[in-house]
């Protein structure tokens, strides 16, 4: 009898999972909870789970607050899947986008007390790869598992 693979849906690129939420911050945790419970069977260490959770929540928060300006009529679409031991998560909002290259370095002396850009910075540091689409309303994050 063939063994069922609980992660088959994640490994098949054609069956990536999609979560769509309204632009309210109370949905941030729902997104991270769903993704983390989907990959629970992988048995990742706590440090990796922390990083993934933090990056999902930072990206979704930015999409809700900065991308969609907390307009609950606008949605945030999150797509995720596992392929070749890599977790890929895309977070897309309905805003006009932004140029990630213009975000000030939050670790610079002049900006460290300003509290902006730290979420984007943490994602860049904690993920193995981070890309934005041309207009900057979609971030793609990749974590090696």
């Amino acid at each position, binding site marked *: 009898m063939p063994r069922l693979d609980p992660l088959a849906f994640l490994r098949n690129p054609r069956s990536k999972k999609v979560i769509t939420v309204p632009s309210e*911050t*109370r949905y*941030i*945790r729902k997104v991270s909870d769903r993704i983390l419970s989907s990959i629970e069977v992988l048995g990742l260490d*706590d*440090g990796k789970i*922390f990083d993934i*959770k*933090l990056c999902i*929540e*930072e990206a979704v*928060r930015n999409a809700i607050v900065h991308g969609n300006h907390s307009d609950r009529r606008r949605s945030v679409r999150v797509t995720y899947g596992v392929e070749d031991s890599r977790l890929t998560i895309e977070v897309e909002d309905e805003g006009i986008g932004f140029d990630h290259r213009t975000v000030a370095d*939050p*670790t610079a002396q002049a900006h*460290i*007390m300003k*509290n902006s850009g*730290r*979420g984007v*910075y*943490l994602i860049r*540091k*904690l993920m193995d790869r981070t890309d934005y689409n041309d207009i900057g309303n979609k971030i793609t994050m990749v974590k090696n598992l």
Partner: protein
Amino acid sequence: MSVKIENKNGLTVFYVEGEIDINSAPAIKKSFDKLLSARTPKIIVNLSKVSYVDSSGLATLVEILKNMRSYGGRLRLTNLSAKIKSLFEITKLEKLFEIMPDEAEAISTFV
């Protein structure tokens, strides 16, 4: 998330339990407001029971530090988990805050 404030050796020790994120950070700030209004000179924040901090949580701690510095107060953070400490290192906030391994040492050396 819950908070508890105790007085130890004449110092204010602020205990946080749970997660400090975009949803709980405003409540932490509110709990701190009374201490800041009273210009409490020295505060220790014990994070031993904090399992998660996001950028909103870090921002709230920076705001509290800025406020305390404005009146000459001092803030110490203690008992950070290795993961949360690494966030302070990555963001270079470790240079801004007085971070100490444990509360007892933070109290005994807070002169």
